[in-house]
């Protein structure tokens, strides 16, 4: 109980709409000094959260975007042997100082930073299966040794680590045990309105209503191989607005469906439904009580 208020709390920022539960999870991770693992469908604002946590707490942010070829060691430091070899061959640099060829990675920088930082490890599931396990010790102890120089880097302040995952791979259990976990749910229509308003501030309210009805209706369809996400909705609205499609048309049909559905199978299924005289909902009530507004 002694440390109840011993840490800086995150309260959300003006530019990020975070649910109270998410704010609690962030604070829990900060208080317990554990990495926060965020999962959720694409377009639910996982990556942006780190930026706003940094902003809200007035800290610097470092990001480490993971690719399929990323190695855990790269996050700590990279020893540029080839450059050193090259320098020694052509005499272009001081080869004797090995530290010139050691470049700290994002995790290394976060440890070495004189002040506390927010470290975003983005899309950790893109990397190799064993990648998260290779980071366990470093994240636990917040220290590592540069083998080439024997220098030890110890974090002066434990960074706030935020990790995002798109669920492309399962993460190892040992890694999960150390994380605080939060799953960001897909935005509900009310939240979606606010999100759309950021991108299309002058959209006709009636049109937006129809657009959202169609969008959530599509997402309800089990047969879809790939559900449309927020970014696809934003693109779709842009297409509708540019083409000047009337509200009536959006009421009856789903024009430019290619902006929403990206799989041939899904487009076919919708066309078959349309050809068979299937109805598209025009009001929230038709989507069922979950969407009663």
């Amino acid at each position, binding site marked *: 109980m002694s*440390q109840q208020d011993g840490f800086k709390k995150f309260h959300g920022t003006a530019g990020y709409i975070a649910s109270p539960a998410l704010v609690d999870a962030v604070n829990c991770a900060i208080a*317990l000094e554990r990495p926060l*693992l965020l999962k959720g469908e694409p377009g639910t604002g996982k990556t942006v959260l780190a930026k706003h946590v940094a902003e809200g707490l007035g800290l610097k942010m470092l990001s480490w975007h993971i690719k399929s070829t990323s190695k855990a060691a790269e996050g700590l430091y990279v020893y540029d042997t080839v450059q050193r070899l090259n320098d020694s061959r052509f005499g272009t640099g001081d080869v004797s100082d090995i530290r010139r060829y050691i470049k700290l990675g994002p995790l290394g920088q976060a440890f070495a930073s004189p002040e506390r930082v927010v470290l975003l490890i983005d899309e950790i599931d893109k990397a190799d299966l064993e990648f998260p396990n290779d980071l366990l010790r470093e994240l636990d102890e917040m220290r590592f040794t540069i083998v080439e120089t024997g220098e030890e880097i110890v974090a002066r302040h434990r960074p706030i680590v935020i990790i995002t995952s798109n669920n492309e791979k399962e993460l190892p259990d040992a890694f999960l045990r150390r994380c605080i*976990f939060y799953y960001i749910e897909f935005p509900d229509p009310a939240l979606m309105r606010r999100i759309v308003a950021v991108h299309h501030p002058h959209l006709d309210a009636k049109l937006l209503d129809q657009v959202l009805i169609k969008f959530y209706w599509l997402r309800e369809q089990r047969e879809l191989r790939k559900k449309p996400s927020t970014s696809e909705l934003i693109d779709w609205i842009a297409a509708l607005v540019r083409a000047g499609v009337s509200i009536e048309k959006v009421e009856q049909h789903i024009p430019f469906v290619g902006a929403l559905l990206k799989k041939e199978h899904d487009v076919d299924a919708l066309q078959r439904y349309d050809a068979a005289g299937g109805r598209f909902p025009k009001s929230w009530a038709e989507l069922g*009580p979950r969407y*009663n507004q």
Partner: protein
Amino acid sequence: MFLDLFYGLREEGVPVGIQEWLTFLEALDRGLHGSSLLGFYQLGRACLIKSETYFDAYDRVFARVFRGVEGAYGEEVVDKVLEWLRNPKNFPNLTPEQLAALERLSHDELMRRFLETLEKQTERHDGGDKWIGTGGRSPFGHSGQHPTGIRVGGPPRSRSAMKVAEERRFRDYRTDLSLDVRQIRVALRRLRQLTRSGEATELDLDRTVDETCRNAGEIELVFRPPRRNDVRLLLLMDVGGTMDPYFEPVSQLLTALHEERGLRAFEAYYFHNCVYEHVYSRARMYREDAVPTGDLLRRLDRRWKVLIVGDAAMHPAELLEPFGNIDPRRVSATPGIVWLQRIAAHFDRAVWVNPEKPAYWDADTCRIIRKLFPMFYLSVDGLTEAVQALVGARGVSLGQAH
């Protein structure tokens, strides 16, 4: 009561260990739950559960364990209980009357009171936790194939933890029930064995330094082949007849396999009910699509992994007797079982994935086939186990999936 949550989760198969539990206790100790049951619910979920697929289990266990704590006594007692939870010795802080009241209440009574409270709270957003059906609304002609329904969700604020738990919004995320292409792909990701082979495109640093030194400082770059997946997969798929009801999960599996770029080689063939002299390169199974099964066995070496998808349900004669092929146009003197035995013997690893629920696996033919191939249920969990049996270390619970 508190430990009931822990053991309840473990009983539900949620991987929660001492480490998570201690994290949770530490978080409670720091008052991170903000002394409300909802905060407690969310904190517990963040600390104990590490995958949305277990949220539903958490909701069920939470609702079971803490049913009646809320509403019946109000927040004050909830706080007291929470305090006790944090430190069991403080439990006597409840007044004797409260304690007695706690004991007097039967489970049904708790439930009733809880529901009453719930009703009062939820009037505003219509009906609260009544199930609503969506079957028949499905647009693609699969009416009735919708899941049983969705719960009515209210606005995120002003909801009680119990209601959140009872809503079970994460039902669809359970991996032991549902399947979608993405989840299948995740399960299939494990289907890999890394080896170095092929073209040398990756810089081998150690040998480069070594060679450069030998070369008196003249840089000598050495390359090696990158590590890549060495898994070759042969898919044999039962189509038509009794497999028709499983069209959807099976086609999702097929989509996922075709999207799986990591495999070194992948071939898919079809059969009807059982494998005989021929398998077919297309699901329509025309004569020109036929490929002699013997050819496959000659061409593909034992390193190929075999994944057979089928319900293993057929007339015993189709499996055991000569000329058992149900298709009269195709004569097969060798009984199907012999072909299956040849496949099982030829390849190092072969598994059978069955879209039918394990409860129905005791048909005669299914039992015989299970002796030849380890059988797994076509769910995300089942597929993960099947993949493990294909590439995992030897002796890992082969054939004991269900």
